[in-house]
């Protein structure tokens, strides 16, 4: 058999995995792999900063469901990738990161551009490898993709010393993996599923609480079928938005810190909480003791056993792949005729929630379009009108992120890309670029703030170089808006270092070779956004909004529903 170098084996293995695009940045220790990459048909996107590469890979993974692939060099290349790796770990995003490393004889010598990358990434990866022998390369790549994409998805790092990339070995790609320590449970325990269905049948106020796991499992259809079949209302976490079409009245939108009054009141009153692929994050629960206080039973479906009963004690745990479990649950429901009699009770409960929602809507439908300054709600309405609601939205972190989560009606899963767990400012633009590589035919909008966009603004260069059609909407209030909001409410209006000057975004876009627009008045909004959205290629739209605009309602951190603040 013909011998290949370790670098060529990496590339051949990626091809065998069906990888079509890599986000990366070359450097000394990874050059052998880059040299091999030049001869392959895999597309490579040269980023401007390695953090950008990791978020692009995340955006790509979220939209396609397949692991995003990143290649970086050793030392600073690797450490720059850490934020994105940690982000992917928190949001269960499949990713394979291949990093260059100094030669094996130099490891531990404080060599040029050496860091202990396996050590650094151990707590923020699902698994990681330091490859010490060229004979292991193909097996390790195979395992890395399997681990990243199987069970609860997550990032895997492969650290490749330069001499291993250069050493030679015959290439054959294994067709299966043998990992005795990694065997995720797929099918849920039938007895537990039966117990769950029983608990649901006995309840009067059942409520589904769904998270990002539903989307990773590709189970949005099964979830919607279950909710509609029984008439059970659904609340979604930030990562779960789009699991059930927002236009369905059963869809109650986001719960938690910035959830609506109606939705959070439903959580307070439910007697049977059915958590599906969600992890009882503190932004959802607030004070644990007061979370879902009337739930006589909590059912939790999750592929990761360690998520179950971690924060909240669960009555009916079901470990398994959500799609498989929900399919079995649908069968169990269909087999149980008596459950149909409960629908009338649940319909009443549903109506009650809708009444709560009407009592205190998220935003009063008032004259926000007539006022002089631009309202964030108005921007979102225009975005929705211009795209007919069919687009992928990537956000950064802060007020704009919460407004999107509250107000944009997502009809499809895999349409909102956002940093939920780690809350990484700078995620949006690169994630939007990555999304476009996964779904070239879908419209991609990045919604960001003046603070967040400046964290990875350099990726505008990447968007221009590859002609990536992303529309970047900056809600610009010359402040770190969410920080300002907390300082206003919880720190007696002492605005400690949260005001920020910003560049002239129109000129900046121009300098990068993109197109820029600026909107200062409400009356300019519709026409300018229309023009901007119709302009091909990367476009930056700088929209000035008042700094006093706050995300409401809000449950203070560590608080409970009774402490909810309103506008």
């Amino acid at each position: 058999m013909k011998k290949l170098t370790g670098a060529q084996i990496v590339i051949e293995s990626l091809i065998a995995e069906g990888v079509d695009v890599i986000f990366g940045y070359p450097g000394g220790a990874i050059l052998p792999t880059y040299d091999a990459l030049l001869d392959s048909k895999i597309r490579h996107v040269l980023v401007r900063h390695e953090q950008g590469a990791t978020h692009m890979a995340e955006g790509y993974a979220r939209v396609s469901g397949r692991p995003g692939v990143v290649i970086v060099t050793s030392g600073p290349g690797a450490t720059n990738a850490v934020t994105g790796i940690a982000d992917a770990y928190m949001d269960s995003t499949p990713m394979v990161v291949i990093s260059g490393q100094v030669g094996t004889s130099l490891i531990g010598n404080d060599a040029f551009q050496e860091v202990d990358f396996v050590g650094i990434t151990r707590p923020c990866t699902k698994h990681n490898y330091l490859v010490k022998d060229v004979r292991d390369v193909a097996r390790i790549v195979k395992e890395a993709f399997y681990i990243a994409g199987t069970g609860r998805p997550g990032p895997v790092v492969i650290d490749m010393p330069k001499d291993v990339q250069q050493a030679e070995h015959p290439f054959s790609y294994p067709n299966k993996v043998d990992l005795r320590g990694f065997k995720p449970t797929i099918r849920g325990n039938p007895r537990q599923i039966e117990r769950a269905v029983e608990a649901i049948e006995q309840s009067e106020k059942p409520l589904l609480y769904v998270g990002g796991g539903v989307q990773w499992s590709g189970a949005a259809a099964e979830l919607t079928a279950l909710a509609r079949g029984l008439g059970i209302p659904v609340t979604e976490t930030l990562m779960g938005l789009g699991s059930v079409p927002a236009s369905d009245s059963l869809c109650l939108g986001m719960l938690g810190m910035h959830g609506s009054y109606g939705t959070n009141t439903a959580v307070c009153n439910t007697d049977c909480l059915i958590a599906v692929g969600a992890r009882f994050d503190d932004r959802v629960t607030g004070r644990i003791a007061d979370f879902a206080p009337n739930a006589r039973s909590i059912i939790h479906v999750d592929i990761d056993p360690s998520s179950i009963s971690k924060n909240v004690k669960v009555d009916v745990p079901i470990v398994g792949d959500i799609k498989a479990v929900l399919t079995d649950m649908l069968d169990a429901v269909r087999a149980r005729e008596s459950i149909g009699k409960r629908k009338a009770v649940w319909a009443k409960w549903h109506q009650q929630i809708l009444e709560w929602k009407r009592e205190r809507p998220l935003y009063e439908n008032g004259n926000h379009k007539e006022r002089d300054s631009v309202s964030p709600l108005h921007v979102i309405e225009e975005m929705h009108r211009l795209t007919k609601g069919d687009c992928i939205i990537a956000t950064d972190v802060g007020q704009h992120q919460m407004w999107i989560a509250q107000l944009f009606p997502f009809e499809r899963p895999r349409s909102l890309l956002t940093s939920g767990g780690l809350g990484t400012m700078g995620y949006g633009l690169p994630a939007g670029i990555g999304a476009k590589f996964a779904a070239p035919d879908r419209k991609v909008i990045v919604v960001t703030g003046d603070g967040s966009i400046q964290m990875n603004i350099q990726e505008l260069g990447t968007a221009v170089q590859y002609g990536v059609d992303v529309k970047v909407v900056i809600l610009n209030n010359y402040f770190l808006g969410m920080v300002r909001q907390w300082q206003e409410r919880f720190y007696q209006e002492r605005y400690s270092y949260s005001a920020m000057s910003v560049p002239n975004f129109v000129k900046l876009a121009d300098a990068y070779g993109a197109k820029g627009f600026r909107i200062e008045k409400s009356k300019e909004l519709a026409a300018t956004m229309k023009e901007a959205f119709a302009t091909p290629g990367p476009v930056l739209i700088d929209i000035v909004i008042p700094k006093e605009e706050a995300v409401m309602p809000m449950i203070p951190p560590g608080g409970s529903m009774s402490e909810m603040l309103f506008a």
Partner: protein
Amino acid sequence: MPSHTISVLVENEFGVLSRVAGLFSSRGFNIESLTVNEDPQDPTVSRIVLVTSGDDQILEQINKQLNKLVSVIKVTDFKEVDTVDRELVMVKIAVDERTRTELDSIVHAFRAHVVDIGPRSVTVEVTGDTGKIKAFIALVRPLGIKEMVRTGKIAMARSVQLESNHNHRHVRE
């Protein structure tokens, strides 16, 4: 909080101990004692026996988080099972004409071994469960302990255990 022994079977590869130890430190769990050894019969695996403490919920999380590590093959929780456990300690004890006989009788009673003798000190090796080791140390302390090294705990489930453990508890109740 009660101490608790867990046996973790892991892939015998470099870095595996830091994965396990890192899990404990990053989640704020405590390790009270730790032993690691290549399995004498299967060199591809190692066994880590560790003693930790925490309430039931913490122990459940430790168990689940350990199982989540790709390098971990099997986690055995010794909470529900009767186990045989052993520690080993070597103690260098000061002796003179007067105390030599007293030490000899303690060594004999504990079925310990003298492994080194000098003009002013004797080194004794004792194996046993934590209680026995503690008792031995308490007895020789008045003689003067010059130096002491102690291993972590190793443990194994008793072979006929489940049944006898069950009966045992039944009787106690």
